[in-house]
């Protein structure tokens, strides 16, 4: 594979890399394709015909829109709470020494390093015992905020580390109060990191299903709605249409946030997806 003076990748390596890329994207293409198929309950290939009918059916379903709105609401509130808690925490842990600091840094990561089911049933049993709040939007938010804190935290800590301590000193030397320094120096520096962290937290929350299963009330979030209609025999392409909506709602902001973060030198921090307990931001390091 590695030859003495070649800087070009070998043929085998190129082929293998290309195949893996195709493997990653082929299923997404299938989702798009079958959103347009004319068949209502099977997935023959190639599809016998293409239609926009399923988009009409999907958009007309009020229960889908209810789930969609609930997911939007939950994701917005969870991301906001994560921004608040995560950035405060980052401010405290960054460059302060106190008892239990290392332990705290470990605990922050736990909600996404442990399987999501752990977070789910632990919170559910506590909510059951305390009997408050009633199962519903707030209990979902509690679950989501727990694993979203680390996303914002990692983004903000990464930014604070990269920020020169000189700017804070310069601000103080020029007579700014602590508040003014925070308001006019620190906050503008953190803005994009907060935004990127918030967007990633939003996307993670919007797609989450494992923790949600345990902490939700009777109203489904969008992923739960999709899961519930999955096994219905009729109008199957409707699921694909809703799946496309769900993917768009998370992919577009995340892509923008990644571009934004790269612009301000932060790309890579703040990973996580998949099944609720998806990933630690620490574990998917900066790729550059």
């Amino acid at each position, binding site marked *: *594979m*590695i*030859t003495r003076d070649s800087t070009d*990748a070998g043929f085998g390596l*190129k082929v*293998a*890399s290309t195949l*893996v*890329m195709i*493997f*990653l994207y082929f*299923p997404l293409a299938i989702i798009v394709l*079958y959103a347009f198929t004319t068949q209502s309950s*099977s997935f023959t*290939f190639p599809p016998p015909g293409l239609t926009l009918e399923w988009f009409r059916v999907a958009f007309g379903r009020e229960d889908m829109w209810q789930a969609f709105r609930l997911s939007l609401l939950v994701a917005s509130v969870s991301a906001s709470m994560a921004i608040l*808690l995560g950035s405060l*925490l980052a401010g*405290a842990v960054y460059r*302060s020494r106190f008892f239990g600091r290392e332990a705290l840094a470990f605990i*922050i990561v736990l*909600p996404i*390093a*442990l*399987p*999501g*089911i*752990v*977070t789910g*049933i*632990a*919170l559910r*049993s*506590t909510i059951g015992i305390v009997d408050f709040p009633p199962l519903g939007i707030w209990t979902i938010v509690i679950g989501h*905020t*727990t694993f979203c*804190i680390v996303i914002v935290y990692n983004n903000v800590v990464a930014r604070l580390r990269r920020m020169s301590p000189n700017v804070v000193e310069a601000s103080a030397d020029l007579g700014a*109060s*602590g508040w*003014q320094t*925070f308001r006019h120096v620190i906050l503008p520096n953190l803005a994009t990191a907060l935004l990127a962290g918030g967007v990633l937290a939003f996307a993670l929350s919007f*797609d989450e*299903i*494992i923790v949600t299963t345990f902490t939700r009330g009777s109203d489904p979030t969008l*992923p739960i709605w999709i*899961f519930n209609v999955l096994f219905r025999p009729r109008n199957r392409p409707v*699921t694909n249409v809703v*799946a496309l909506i769900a993917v768009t709602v*998370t992919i577009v902001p995340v892509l923008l946030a990644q571009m934004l973060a790269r612009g301000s030198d932060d*790309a*890579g921090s703040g990973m996580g*997806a*998949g*099944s609720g*307990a*998806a*990933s630690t931001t620490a*574990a*998917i*390091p900066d*790729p550059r």
Partner: protein
Amino acid sequence: MALSQRDRRNGFMAGVSGFFYRHPWSKLLLLLLPAVLWLMGLYLGSIAGLLVNSFWSIEEFTGLIDRTFTLSTYRDLFEPYNRDIVLRTFFMAAAVTVACAFLAFPLAYYMARYATRRGRFVLYLAVLMPLWSSYLVRALAWRQIFARGGVLYWALGKLGLDGVLDTLVQAPVVGGSSLIASKISLFIVYMYLWLPFMILPIEAALERVPGSFLEASSDLGARPGLTFRRIVLPLAKPGLIAGSIFTFSLTLGDFILPTMFGSSEFYLGQQVFTQIGVVGNTPLAAAFTFVAMAIMIVYLTIAKRAGAFESL
């Protein structure tokens, strides 16, 4: 008027910041308190509560939970049915992890060694994006790929290989009544879903290997295979371990996929879900959860020893 209000506010904020400046501990406390209460109180408290639950038991006839300390729930884990669930889940997680490592390496290696700076960022985004599309959606895609008459059967039919697939599906242990109902499909979908989690840390680890190491190795007469085994692989190990933490942990705790793929045989997450949601046996569900946690903690300890945390 507006000006004086602004002055007053600045004066107030200056006072507050002055207080914080004179009492740095108060500021630290205020910053720490909300998140610490949340994570230590709510989250860790909940897990501790779960641990307590696993030492309780359920009364067989009444279905009520008996709140006296007992190890009987953990003993139940060793019943053949439950033990098989744990072993089945463990081997699935291990198989998925190994497969992900093999699939991830070439692309990670290409990204780290040959891609231009810009190309690498594009590839990085391309690997990242599937992770950010709902995992349910991606699993749904595979049900449509694996369907009878679907694209996989169509493609294999064109190649004249559909008979091979049918033989594979009918194989003992891994097979099932159809492709979707076989362990093979469950395995492939897990592998697909978690693959990016493996690619990214390996890529990051490989990126830190200086090209001169490889040149030095070949200058000293090592063939590519030897360089790979002795130089590349050891240096990629922390990334491999970091990635495997995810592939392993995520497979261990998942309960959605086994309802969509595979036979009626249960996996750990499903059993937890059923015990807590259907049977109402919270102690047994808690005990199963702690098996998953224990496996992960052993895994994390080994990973830490192997130096994977430094590369995180």
